[in-house]
């Protein structure tokens, strides 16, 4: 498969996944009915998941609400999993497709530059610098020796979180990483990676990271400390991914709430001074841009640190 056809396939995939396609096939998209009386909660629908997406529209109010299809839930054992696309699922698709496309373009620019015997310029170079920075300064020093195997996972985590964070700042976009299910899943993936890395690095010694048994203590103290410290070890193990999930979720949600609350001030006061929140909201938006990068970075950094810690555990 050549790169060109791959890119074309991807573009088709993006189109298929985009709500615009849904608009073409059915009557799922409609102009949202106006005229709500009284106060409306604009914040909760924005930051929570939903069964419809908003797409740009050329007439007032400049967006259409597209209801997403509802699929039969599938049953896995006792679990009932509803795989029908929701707003955040669609954002996941778009984010993944966009990221994959960008990376393919970078790779093509890279290949071209290499055959020319040079270095890629512009965006490709910027992405390459990010990849190299994350790999050489964040992942490899923290994961420890022979950490190459963890690079794909951590790099993917970084770029996927970054893309989803940034998509949340785009008009009509929504922050999938502001959904606790997404961040929890990513944290669970990190948790699994960490534990598997621990088992592979320590073998039977991995049990020491769950059960506390210190041979340097006097013999009668060992069972006592075992009883006291083992729960601490286990809680410590579970706290790390929990903190990862909550940190990302809360950071992504909080920024949007602040921006929307500032926007809400305009409607609350409705006079000339109400221009002020616009400035503040813009500045918060700039901060959000920074936070989008920061949180992706932190997630990757902490995942690397956790992997490094458990691999060093037997020392």
């Amino acid at each position, binding site marked *: 498969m050549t790169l060109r056809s791959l890119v074309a396939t991807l573009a088709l995939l993006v189109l298929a996944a985009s709500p615009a396609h849904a608009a073409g096939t059915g009557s799922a998209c409609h102009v949202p009915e106006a005229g709500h009386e009284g106060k409306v909660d604009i914040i909760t629908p924005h930051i929570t998941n939903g069964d419809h997406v908003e797409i740009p529209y050329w007439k007032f109010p400049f967006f259409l609400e597209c209801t997403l299809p509802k699929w039969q839930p599938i049953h896995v054992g006792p679990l009932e999993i509803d795989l*029908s696309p*929701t707003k955040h699922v669609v954002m996941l698709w778009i984010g993944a497709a966009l990221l994959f496309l960008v*990376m393919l373009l970078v790779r093509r620019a890279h290949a071209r530059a290499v055959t020319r015997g040079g270095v890629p310029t512009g965006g490709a170079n910027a992405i390459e610098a990010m990849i190299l920075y994350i790999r050489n300064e964040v992942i490899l020093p923290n994961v420890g020796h022979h950490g190459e195997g963890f690079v794909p996972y951590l*790099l*993917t985590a970084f770029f996927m979180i970054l893309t989803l964070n940034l998509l949340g700042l785009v008009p009509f976009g929504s922050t999938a990483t502001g959904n606790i299910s997404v961040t929890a899943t990513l944290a669970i993936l990190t948790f699994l990676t960490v534990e598997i890395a621990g088992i592979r690095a320590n073998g039977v010694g991995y049990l020491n990271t769950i059960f506390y048994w210190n041979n340097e203590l006097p013999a009668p103290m060992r069972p006592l400390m075992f009883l006291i410290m083992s729960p601490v070890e286990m809680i410590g193990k579970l706290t790390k991914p929990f903190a990862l999930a909550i940190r990302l979720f809360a950071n992504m949600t909080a920024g949007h709430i602040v921006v929307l609350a500032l926007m809400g001030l305009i409607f609350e006061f409705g006079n000339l001074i109400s221009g002020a929140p616009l400035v503040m909201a813009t500045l918060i938006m700039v901060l959000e841009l920074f936070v989008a990068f920061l949180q992706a970075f932190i997630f990757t950094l902490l995942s690397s640190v956790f992997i490094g810690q458990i691999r060093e555990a037997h020392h």
Partner: protein
Amino acid sequence: MRAPLSALVLLAAAATPALASSEAEAAAKPGLLDPHLGLMTWTIIVFVLLMIGLKTFAFGPILEAVSGREQAIRDAIAAAERDRAEAAKLIAEQKAAIEAARGEAQRYIAEGRATAEQMRNELLEQARKQQAEMIDNAHKSIEAEKAKAIAELRREAVDLALAGAGKLIGQKLDAAADRQLVEQYLTSLGGK
């Protein structure tokens, strides 16, 4: 007993629809912290596919190219270092050669100077010796000439004296014995 029980049943009956309606409300308006299994599944699917895709089509080739480039740069640096060492060695050799040449030149000059000095001294010495010899010779010849002249003069004087004395006494004096006499006299004069 009956009254409270019926009240409880009533309460439960009353509570059920309320609960159901609140559940419906919750379903319609998802809460911030509700886990959503479908979304979690989708996250895993999308993430794993993305990871495989990116690893195969993006990170792998890019990192490979980068490491190739790093290798090329490392090689270039090593080559440059090697060349520099080579150049430094050559320069050192060159410098040593120049230094040697200069030392040799210096030595030649010094040698030449010494030779010239020696030659001059020798010539001077020779000249002086020659001069001394010539003077000496001159002295000697003068001395010889002088002695010869004196002898000549003396003989002449003897002859004259003898002739004068012979004339004076009118007789010819015995040549050999008189001569001896006069010469003795002269010698005694010369001895004074």
